């Protein structure tokens, strides 16, 4: 019983001693707190800024990643679509050229402005 009391007393004493920070430790804590507060004030108000802090701080040439990442994604998507469309178009042209160059009819028949209309008129009868 005595032992327990003595132990509790000792624990209380140790906790109290460590709770009282003296000199340099208190000074460092205060400085850190002030620095944090300063930094917080320098940022524009608004909740989203706090949320995006980590990504917002990293970046290239003054642009934050939150701007760069979506823009780059957009650009890549745009370029890919454009390239794909160009390729499709080129493939279509190539297909038609192959047919034209090997067709039963000479190229002149396809260059003639009247033949196609004449042929259609005849086919209608």
């Amino acid at each position, binding site marked *: 019983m005595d032992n327990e009391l003595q132990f509790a007393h000792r624990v209380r004493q140790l906790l109290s001693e460590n709770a009282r920070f003296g000199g340099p430790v208190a000074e460092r804590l205060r400085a850190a707190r002030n620095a944090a507060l300063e930094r917080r004030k320098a940022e*524009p108000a608004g909740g989203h800024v706090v949320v995006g802090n980590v990504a917002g701080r990293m970046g290239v040439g*003054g*642009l934050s990643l939150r*701007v*760069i990442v979506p*823009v*780059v994604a*957009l*650009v*890549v998507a*745009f*370029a890919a679509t*454009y*390239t794909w469309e*160009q*390729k499709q178009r*080129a*493939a279509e*042209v*190539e297909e*038609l*050229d*192959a*047919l*034209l*160059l*090997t*067709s*039963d*009819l*000479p*190229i002149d*028949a*396809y*260059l*003639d*402005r*009247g*033949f*196609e*209309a*004449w*042929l*259609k*008129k*005849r*086919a*209608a009868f």
Partner: protein
Amino acid sequence: MAEKTRRFLIAAAFALLAAAGIAHGAPSGKRPAWAELSAAHQQILAPLKETWEQIVPERRHNWIGLAKRYPKMQPKEQERMQRRMEHWAKLTPEQRKQARENYRRISKVPPDKRGDLKQQWSEYQSLPPQERQGAAPPKSKPAPAK
């Protein structure tokens, strides 16, 4: 906030320019010289050898694509392609476009109605010029006779 918008717009503008550059350069970035073609392709495209340097990169890629199809063609088709290459390459882009368009239209006419195309073509050619012109859509009228 205004600063952020401004930055975003600048970034977007740069990025779009870059994308346009990439996309534009991708398909026709290389312009293979005649010497860079494989021996097989050189042989197939031989009729174009003299004019190859005047052909724009996009068309060069088109010809290389056609050369790749060549081995799969029938001998008769190969012979036709060899004969027509030079003529086809000399046409203006507009003429080629028109010819492709006409090809598409003609192939839409059902075969049982259009009959033998070769026969139709020679029949059409034997028509007097006026009758042939009369069939053409009145886009550019011939100069009125005085």
